[in-house]
């Protein structure tokens, strides 16, 4: 089977760090925003080389057939046949024509496209980050490849966040309550400032060796319960929730985001990705050691 070499685009699209995970998490609808996949055994990597990894910044991954090309503009029209990743507002591409800024691919070629958006008008116009020619018998493995990449990116994110956490623990949310803020302090807060609440969190196990001393303790944990768009991906703690928390000391919060709040002896958790279901404790423990 003939296979084209992988073409990677660098420059403005060569982003760094956790972009893949972030893109994946933020592409989910709000109700399903937790970016960590289920802790089941990860899928087995596919037997064919779909690339060394998914290119950073690939907001879209789909299979398609080249139906026309314009050499002058480098615009290739591709009929999408199977969608593996698109941001929520885009939805599945199956059956639609997508205009791809790309190096030329021969007409009628079937390829897997890694891409990011440039424009959305009557049709989508996207920038190819890389593409891999495929035969029809290879397509069933693509979904597993993407899922595996997402799983690895999620794990990398947890490991990175845990490295900078002051405590990584499992436990139960016992209760939650509002934090009183004086009117004078409230006047210093802006519309995008976090709206802090506090949870009592009973630690049942430490997932990092240096946290063993706090097992069995009740921690005071601040979290953001604001309704602003800037708060949308914040962790929301509810009584009886069994969670793994990646905690920071609240004194690390910038003063202009905690006017009127006594942070003494309090931890905080801000990002929903730092409040994981208890079933992930084994996986997280393995990642943070």
């Amino acid at each position, binding site marked *: 089977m003939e296979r084209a070499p992988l073409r990677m685009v660098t420059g403005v699209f060569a982003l760094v760090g956790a972009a893949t995970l972030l893109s994946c998490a933020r592409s989910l609808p709000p109700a399903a925003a937790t970016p960590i996949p289920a802790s089941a055994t990860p899928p087995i990597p596919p037997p064919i080389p779909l690339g060394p990894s998914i290119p950073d910044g690939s907001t879209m991954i789909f299979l398609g057939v080249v139906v026309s090309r314009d050499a002058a503009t480098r615009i290739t029209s591709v009929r999408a046949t199977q969608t593996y990743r698109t941001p929520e507002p885009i939805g599945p591409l199956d059956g639609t024509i997508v205009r791809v800024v790309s190096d030329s691919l021969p007409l009628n070629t079937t390829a897997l496209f890694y891409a990011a958006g440039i424009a959305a008008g009557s049709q989508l116009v996207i920038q190819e980050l890389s593409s891999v020619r495929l035969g029809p018998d290879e397509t069933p493995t693509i979904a597993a490849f993407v899922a595996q990449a997402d799983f690895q990116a999620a794990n990398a994110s947890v490991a990175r966040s845990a490295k900078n956490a002051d405590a990584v623990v499992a436990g139960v949310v016992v209760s939650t309550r509002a934090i009183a803020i004086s009117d004078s302090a409230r006047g210093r807060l802006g519309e995008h400032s976090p709206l802090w609440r506090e949870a009592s969190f009973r630690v049942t196990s430490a997932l990092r060796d240096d946290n063993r001393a706090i097992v069995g303790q009740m921690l005071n944990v601040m979290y953001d319960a604001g309704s602003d768009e*800037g708060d949308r991906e914040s962790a929301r703690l509810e009584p009886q929730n069994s969670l793994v928390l990646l905690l*920071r000391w609240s004194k690390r919060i910038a003063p202009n985001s905690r006017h009127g709040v006594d942070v003494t002896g309090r931890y905080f958790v801000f990002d929903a990705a730092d409040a994981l279901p208890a079933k992930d404790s084994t996986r997280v423990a393995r990642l943070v050691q």
Partner: protein
Amino acid sequence: MSRRRLFLALLCMTVTVGPPAGAQRIRVVNMIPRSLSHEHEENSEPSVTVNPVDPSFVVGTAYTIYTNNYCDKAHSPAFVSSDSGETWSLLCVLPTPSTLLTQKRSPALDMTVRFSGDGTALYAGFMMVDQSNDTTLLGTDAHIVGYLAPVPNSLAPVFSRATLGAGVPIASPLLLRRSVDQPFLATAPNPSRAIAIGADDDYMLNFSTCYSGSVYYSLDVWPVNGVAGAGQINPYCVAFRPSAGRTPAVRTAIASDGYVYAVFYRPIGNGNIVDVVVARNDPPILTLGLAFQGLKDRGSLLLGSKSDSSKKLGCVQRDSLPGFRVKPCALYPTPTSSNFSNFGNERRIRSELSIAVSPTNPAQLYIAWADSVPGSVAHLTLHFARSPDHGASWTIVPFAVDSATNPALAVAADGAVGILYQHLASLNGEARWEVCFALSTDGLASRPACTKLADTPALTPAVEAQPYLGDYLTLESRGRNFFGIFSASNDLSHSTFWPDFGVQRLYGADKVPVDLQGKPVPISIDPYFVRVIR
């Protein structure tokens, strides 16, 4: 019902809704492109600007929280039209500063866009909330980005970043400032590249000489051979008077004679009382400590209660401090964090302000603001005032709009005043958001009729996050014409829009949104472009 509420209710009953007045031609267009038919997010808090040299070139912004994920991490989207707003595309064009590329942050929020008065530059202002657990910041970063000499003809037929600029520099951030909220842009009505950006600015906040209300101002951020320089745009405090907290929002206007104006709320008491203040910078003063002190609070005694509490709050007499208090000691609902259903899902954060100056008579000013009704924590009422003398004296006009928000003012070349706002109405017990365009040809001496552009359910779709419709909308004049934008539900099955209405996203036979495969999509909040040709 209080006598004031009864009075306001009677006034509201006089508002006419329906056909357009006179010969004006109105067009309303849903800006969501066809290829985004699957989207169902809150495209709220919109802004739009029309190129003064080529009015076919229009750029708009709105909250596009999840649509951001379509673009790469280095860019945020804006809506662009090259046919006077008839059709729209979303372009990934607003650059993210390199320092923020690797941080966890929110998408671009609080966006506004404005073409410069000479049409050679497009400015965009937006902020991103730093969501990094590991940097202790949790702050906001405001950005002003600029585009030099955009070439409208290059937009069609293929939209891309490469063709947007076509031979001119693609934007680089002109200003990056930590913890600046609502960077709201205004440009001059005459041929210049002057820009004035109102902001709630931590950088200026010290709670002794400045209460965060600020204006970033520049005559030209590209003064030398088209080279951008962040140092060319500087912040100036406008909120000098002791306040009960920070200044929530600042709106600006640049006059053709070089005066720069700002209107803002000054919170006092427990924060549920506000002064409506206008500050003015007199050309050419732009020295820190002197800027925006052109108007002092002087003149006749203030009206109202002579109680001790009123005296303590300064509601009884003028204080001679910088910034003229057009409406002292107005009531305002305590900003709420959770109860939005009592005002059509909208929050109230003291941002309902607008200021406009006549392009042909630079001494003629208009402002709009919202305050509340005694005893009601929910309502906002819109008020208007005019000044014939560069803000030295003001007349509060003898009408108000009850249960309304998001006023936007603009003055046309012939002196006509356009008002765009959103009115919370009730139809058979159902809360409705009506969008009104009102045109005054007598300088707001009498109540202008409401031309209803949209009538949509107020409580559906449900709130996902705030802002729901937005903390503001915008209106702009070009010659005798007006161009505006608002956000509203896209549920055509339960809504009425202006008869001359355009839509690009797909709908099913039952008038509910569908995606490209014809599957139903949840109803959501969309941005709508308004064109008023006179």
